[in-house]
């Protein structure tokens, strides 16, 4: 079936280090959305990528959408303790009207 794989599952970093999570889809995506979920919270929308090869930045966060629209990445520069949480990618298929297919998430821990 349609799958979105996300790696790594967990990442522990020292504050100030960089962090990257990767997302791969088995099929071409119409767009991909990234969410952050804090422990005990709900997914909070970060960004949506639509175009092939698109790169978007939000302060220390850089999001990329692959040329084939099958993979994406989120890179955080110089992590802070406030970055702690689980980051999910979620794709919408080209033939689909709005079903978000979530990756398993990457849980980031930041040691001060």
């Amino acid at each position: 079936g349609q799958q979105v794989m996300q790696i790594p599952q967990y990442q522990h970093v020292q504050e100030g280090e960089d962090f990257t999570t990767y997302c791969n889809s088995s099929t071409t995506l119409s767009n991909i959305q990234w969410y952050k979920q804090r422990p005990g919270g709900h997914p909070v929308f970060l960004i949506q990528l639509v175009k092939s090869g698109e790169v978007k930045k939000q302060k220390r966060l850089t999001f990329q959408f692959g040329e084939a629209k099958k993979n994406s990445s989120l890179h955080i520069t110089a992590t802070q303790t406030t970055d702690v949480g689980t980051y999910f990618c979620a794709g919408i298929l080209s033939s689909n009207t709005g079903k978000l297919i979530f990756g398993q998430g990457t849980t980031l821990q930041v040691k001060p």
Partner: protein
Amino acid sequence: DAGVTQSPTHLIKTRGQQVTLRCSPKSGHDTVSWYQQALGQGPQFIFQYYEEEERQRGNFPDRFSGHQFPNYSSELNVNALLLGDSALYLCASSPGGGRNTQYFGPGTRLTVL
């Protein structure tokens, strides 16, 4: 401007019972999607409602049903509860049919004993 709201926040039920969860979408949004998030997992799509009709469904049994009202709010019903139905149930709203950004509510934590 209120975001997506859900009720109740927490719910405890026993096996075999039925439950109804409620969702009010963000102002201006006409599409509501429901997701189930088991502990340590990503949300799994249950179904989506648009114009008061179920437009798309994920791999969930018929015990899961829903409804959308003329004011775009929605309900999720689960019959004959199983232990495995224990999860966080998330509602997400979006404008224009669901292809756009989906905004999640705080969720309802359901525990089945």
